[in-house]
């Protein structure tokens, strides 16, 4: 649907609870084939179970609330049905005209999903509500196909006393010392980067940076694992310079050093390049922020750029489907990044954190305001009253559903107590960043949104944020796998003479996947902030965090789609092992894992099998190494027509160095040093 992928994994989703499960209802989509595969093994330890139980209670509460709503909001058949001219759909209208045809399929919702929405609301959704559900319940916002697998990360996670926040938050947070913590995460922005490489990549970096910022951290570095098609394909010369330019253009302008990444060419990425971006940030241990909109009466403040018609693909479906105006040009689903605005946004947020002025904060990514207001109120179990007329717009003619779904970049949602509102607005003003109160936290348990004096949205927020559909999709080992596996490397001719060896070596050195990467890395600033201890061409980036003690972190991102194609379970573990080794080789102790899972369509059972295997492999590998997965991102539908990319789990590992002065660079240092080969 929408092409933005910077969403977060709500706690419940990542743990894999689903309302269906809590309710004891069988999953309607339960596939026959899933039974044949041994995907979901659940070695739950006691602490995890406790967590699950409390979450179940939460889910039940939500259901109770929904039943009440049913009666409260149920439309009465006696209501007068009035034909009104085309215009924004309102809640009263939805009650009066229950049978309006709605373009839910065009918005990507299934019949049963639409029925569930009507059930939750006790009426048909308004246009705005329909759009909100369609986006929030989409694959990339709701993780509906991946949830059941991702919960292994939490279930199998080895306990760690360093973890201040794990899966379910915007990003995992790792304690470095009594005072300092770091947070890091990878995200994808694959599809937009194909459509408009420069802006797609730029806004991909912008999105992950805001995730890190939302945790209370100052972003301090980025990394960019990239995948492209064949180097000599004409379209690669459009996509590659654009993506690299966008990563550099945005990151450099934000003042974030780029400390590593990957550059891989393979024809399978021709129509579907991968732009994954990692950001790492540092925060005081006591400065962790969260997204819960607690405290009825608190102000809801929109901070940052004006809202425009960016990335609202869904809104254009509504426009053409319900207003029947075929003339309405399809809105571009591409957003343009403004790194300068983001730089200012960062400074404002950090100043606000330092003065302890916010109760809750959330970045705006996919589904913009719709997502931020429902996620923040769902996280707190509160409600919200929002007035869309107060939202600063780039185009005054925007309709309510467009305002709600807009993916305009460089915005944050703040929850602030009324006594601090003035100070927050003053700080924003000092940096020249727009900040506007758009509503209040309420105790109603409903998000109610008004536009031009009419109620256009009235929903229980958890139904969008947490209680989306969950699928255990059918899975099947790819047909061609046995054949591929039978075609073993041992059967290839080996170089036997010196000349042949020379030939092989030259071939390797010249191959685009192994050759010098400086054409790319030179476009990135690795010096800014003055704490980069290692960056390219090293295997891991190393950052100094504390100038006095020398405390620092090492980071590496790795992945290998070809290995994963042959064996996704082992492929994910190899990616993990490589990143772990790269970090360890600097002298750092690896402590935490993030990941970005780039796969084809989850509706293809063979892709779903690859996905399940990769997740299982990564989760098991983390148990083996004794470090937890703290967060990540799933990107499905990476395919051209029916052909999926190689399954590409990209794994990031973070390690700690007590003193970065002790780091080990990879170059040979002194003449006479002894070389030792470790392992086999």
């Amino acid at each position, binding site marked *: 649907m929408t092409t933005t992928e910077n969403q977060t994994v709500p706690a419940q989703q990542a743990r894999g609870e689903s309302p269906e499960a809590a309710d004891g209802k069988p999953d309607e989509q339960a596939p026959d084939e899933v039974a044949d595969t041994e995907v979901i093994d659940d070695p739950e330890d006691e602490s995890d179970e406790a967590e699950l139980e409390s979450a179940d209670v939460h889910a039940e509460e939500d259901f109770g609330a929904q039943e009440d709503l049913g009666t409260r909001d149920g439309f009465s058949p006696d209501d007068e049905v009035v034909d009104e001219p085309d215009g924004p759909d309102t809640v009263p209208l939805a009650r009066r005209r229950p049978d309006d045809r709605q373009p839910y399929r065009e918005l990507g919702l299934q019949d049963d999903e639409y029925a569930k929405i009507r059930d939750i609301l006790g009426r048909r959704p308004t246009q705005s509500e329909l759009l909100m559900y369609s986006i929030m319940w989409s694959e990339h916002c709701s993780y509906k196909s991946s949830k059941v697998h991702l919960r292994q990360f939490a279930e199998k996670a080895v306990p760690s006393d360093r973890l201040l926040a794990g899966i379910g938050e915007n990003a995992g947070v790792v304690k470095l010392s009594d005072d300092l913590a770091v947070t890091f995460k990878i995200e994808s922005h694959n599809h937009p980067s194909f459509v*408009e490489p420069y802006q797609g990549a730029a806004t991909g970096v912008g999105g992950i940076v805001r995730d890190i910022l939302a945790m209370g951290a100052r972003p301090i570095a980025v990394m960019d694992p990239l995948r492209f098609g064949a180097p000599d394909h004409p379209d690669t010369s459009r996509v590659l310079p654009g993506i690299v330019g966008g990563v550099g253009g945005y990151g450099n302008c934000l003042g974030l050093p780029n400390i590593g990444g990957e550059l891989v060419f393979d024809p399978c990425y021709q129509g579907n390049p991968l732009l994954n971006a990692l950001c790492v940030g540092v925060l005081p241990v006591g400065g962790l922020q969260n997204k819960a909109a607690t405290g009825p009466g608190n102000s809801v403040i929109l901070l940052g750029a004006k809202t425009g018609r*960016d990335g609202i693909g869904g809104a254009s479906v509504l426009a053409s489907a319900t207003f029947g105006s075929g003339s309405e040009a399809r809105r*571009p689903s*591409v957003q*343009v990044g*403004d790194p300068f605005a983001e730089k200012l946004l960062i400074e404002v947020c950090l100043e606000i954190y330092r003065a302890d002025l916010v109760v809750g904060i959330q970045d705006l990514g996919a589904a913009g305001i719709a997502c931020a207001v429902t996620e923040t109120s769902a996280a707190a179990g509160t409600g919200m009253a929002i007035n869309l007329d107060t939202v600063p717009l*780039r185009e005054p003619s925007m309709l309510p559903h467009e305002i709600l779904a807009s993916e305009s970049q460089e915005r944050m949602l703040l929850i602030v107590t009324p006594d601090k509102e003035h100070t927050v607005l003053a700080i924003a003003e000092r940096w020249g960043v727009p900040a506007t109160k758009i509503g209040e936290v309420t105790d109603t348990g409903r998000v109610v949104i008004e536009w031009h004096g009419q109620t256009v949205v009235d929903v229980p927020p958890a139904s969008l944020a947490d209680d989306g559909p969950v699928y255990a999709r059918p899975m099947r080992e790819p047909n061609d796998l046995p054949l591929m596996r039978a075609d073993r490397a041992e059967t290839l001719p080996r170089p036997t003479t010196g000349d042949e060896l020379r030939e092989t070596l030259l071939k390797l050195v010249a191959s685009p996947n192994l050759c010098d990467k400086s054409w790319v890395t030179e476009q990135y600033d690795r010096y800014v902030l003055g704490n980069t201890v290692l960056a390219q061409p090293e295997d891991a980036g190393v950052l100094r965090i504390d100038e006095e003690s020398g405390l620092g972190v090492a980071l590496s991102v790795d992945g290998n789609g070809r290995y994963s194609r042959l064996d996704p379970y082992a492929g994910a573990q190899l990616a993990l092992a490589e990143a772990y080794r790269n970090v360890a080789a600097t002298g750092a102790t690896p402590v935490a894992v993030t990941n970005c899972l780039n796969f084809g369509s989850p509706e293809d059972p063979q892709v779903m099998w690859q996905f399940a295997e990769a997740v299982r492999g990564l989760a098991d590998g983390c148990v083996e190494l004794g470090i937890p997965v703290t967060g990540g991102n799933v990107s499905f539908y990476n395919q051209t027509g029916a052909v999926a990319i190689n399954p590409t789990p990209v794994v990031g590992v973070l390690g700690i160095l007590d003193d970065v002065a002790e780091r080990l660079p990879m170059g040979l240092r002194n003449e006479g040093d002894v070389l030792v080969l470790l392992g086999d």
Partner: protein
Amino acid sequence: MARVVVDVMLKPEILDPQGQAVANALPRLGVSGVESVRIGKRIEIDFAGDADLDRAREIADKLLANPVIEDFTVRVSDGDA
């Protein structure tokens, strides 16, 4: 020799950070009364022979503008600039 001018502007609904930065700077120069500033590209293509509008259009479409976010116009230079 003939000159064709291609103007490439961001579509009206697309954010223009450059224009915005300039608009915000104007009050500091003592300039008021400006409602908005948009910044795009002006491209001058000099043909050896006659001005070839179709060719220029093709160049604009393939190389100079990304139709996803930008609109362009093509015209023979009338010496306006």
